[in-house]
């Protein structure tokens, strides 16, 4: 890959450096604190962010891309991507990063693709937005990308409209689109939660392989602790807008925080038969 040398130079500096990040949303009924004092760094690794609904895990991804919505107020001591301050960056320069160096795959491809444009045209548009490619060349690149994400008969699928795709194909198309600019960081927000289990596996293997081949960093947002522990290098566990625990993915079984332990314990398991499932007892102290 042509861009590899430039990347190794940056290897010293963390790709993401987040210190004391607060995000508040102003609503008609008052201000809601979505993220409270979140700090982490990300190198060339796969970081999993896990939590239940409302824990703020998706807000982290959206804040990094600055697509958090106009009513969101972001404060941070530091919010840097590859050494550049994301908070102070003018929107024009932000566009150089968003969709080019940092891209995002969301949960449900049905809501992310334009329903009235052919898949091939949407992919070609992504190519042309980030280069000076001609139309024919961009279309060819689109077909090549569909091939890379293992869509059978890519030339034909490029002519499809989104409603003609199955859930798994739609998610492959989204991944293809996000990989076109060869980003440094891919943020995947519950990329497989809307899919059937066997399709989930295929998409995970695909992501696994592509992230490794392209040496991308990955932020993987999910509610599924066990999935993340198998897929990522490191895990952050979030509860009500805070990071309550951070651990190496293979050390999840040794997690210390009572919330993490509680979550692990209340999942039904295939291996052992229990009479009653353990129930998570929430402690107000976790919010401090």
């Amino acid at each position: 890959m042509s861009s590899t040398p430039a990347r190794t130079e940056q290897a010293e500096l963390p790709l993401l450096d987040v210190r004391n990040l607060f995000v508040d949303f102003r609503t008609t009924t008052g201000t809601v604190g979505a993220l409270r004092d979140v700090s982490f760094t990300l190198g060339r690794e796969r970081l999993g962010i896990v939590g239940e609904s409302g824990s703020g895990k998706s807000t982290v991804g959206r804040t990094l891309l600055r697509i958090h919505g106009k009513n969101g107020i972001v404060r941070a001591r530091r919010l840097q991507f590859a050494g550049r301050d994301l908070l102070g960056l003018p929107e024009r320069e932000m566009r150089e990063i968003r969709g080019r160096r940092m891209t995002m795959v969301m949960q449900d491809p049905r809501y992310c693709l334009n329903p009235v444009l052919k898949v091939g045209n949407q992919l070609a548009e992504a190519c042309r937005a980030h280069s000076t490619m001609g139309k024919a060349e961009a279309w060819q690149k689109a077909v090549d990308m569909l091939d890379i994400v293992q869509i059978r008969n890519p030339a034909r699928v490029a002519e499809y409209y989104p409603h003609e795709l199955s859930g798994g194909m739609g998610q492959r198309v989204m991944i293809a689109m996000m990989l076109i600019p060869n980003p440094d960081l891919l943020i995947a927000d519950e990329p497989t939660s809307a899919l059937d289990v066997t399709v989930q596996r295929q998409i995970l293997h695909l992501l696994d392989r592509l992230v490794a081949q392209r040496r991308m960093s990955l932020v993987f947002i999910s509610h599924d602790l066990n999935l993340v522990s198998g897929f990522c290098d490191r895990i952050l566990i979030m509860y009500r807008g805070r990071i309550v625990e951070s651990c190496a993915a293979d050390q999840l079984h040794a997690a210390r925080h009572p919330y993490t332990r509680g979550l692990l314990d209340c999942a039904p398991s295939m291996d052992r038969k229990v009479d009653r499932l353990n129930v998570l007892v929430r402690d107000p102290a976790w919010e401090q």
Partner: protein
Amino acid sequence: MGAMIEIDRLNVSFGDGSQAMRVVDDVSFRVAKGECFGIVGESGSGKSTILRTIMGLNSNFTGRIVIDGQPFETRRAREQYRHIQMVFQDPYSALHPRRTVDWSINEPLLIQGYPDRDRLVVEMLESVGLSPALRYRFPHQLSGGQRQRVAIARAIILNPAVLLLDEPTSALDLSVQAEVLNLLDGLRRAFGLTYVFVSHELAVVAHMCDRLAVMKQGVVVEILSAEQLRRGDAAQEYTRELIAASLPYRREALAG
């Protein structure tokens, strides 16, 4: 032998003529009284259609549905509807957004002409672990888990024999799922209910059910016990595939 549910050669098709699509294909199974029977399969396998057909929400079926010795046809007596109740996946859309919890639980009693409804509603709220303070709330004022408890309360207030559960915890967080599954398990024992439990998650079905059917494209591939499922002791390739997909994810060998 005390079978509560007998399904015999059930076929369901949608559409006419050459457009007809058979979504349930020659399905037969029996569920004993007090048993929890699971149905697993991927989307489009017909598992929810079976529940809706048993419930009486589909009229275009062939085959026999017998509940507690009584055949259930397309046209049913009001008393027959009381015997079977259903809980849906998404409690957001299953409850009337502009009616209170009290109204939702009361309505089935009203339709069936029950006396002493006030007392029954209060007792039922307690049985499903909801505070009496929530009685006059609207669905949007409740959490997902509370809403699902309301849906369960509404389903069992008529003392049904059979409860059909269509992915009752798929829309809930893991910690809330544990609470709702425990509640369902307790209610089955307390009220002597028979469950048919549809889910795409094998671990949930293995926890809740005694036996389960694996479905693929409208056909029951095999019926096995929860014990066999735990051991991975499946006769069919497709079942083994499903089990493999439910095991913890393992990364592929990494290229540098």
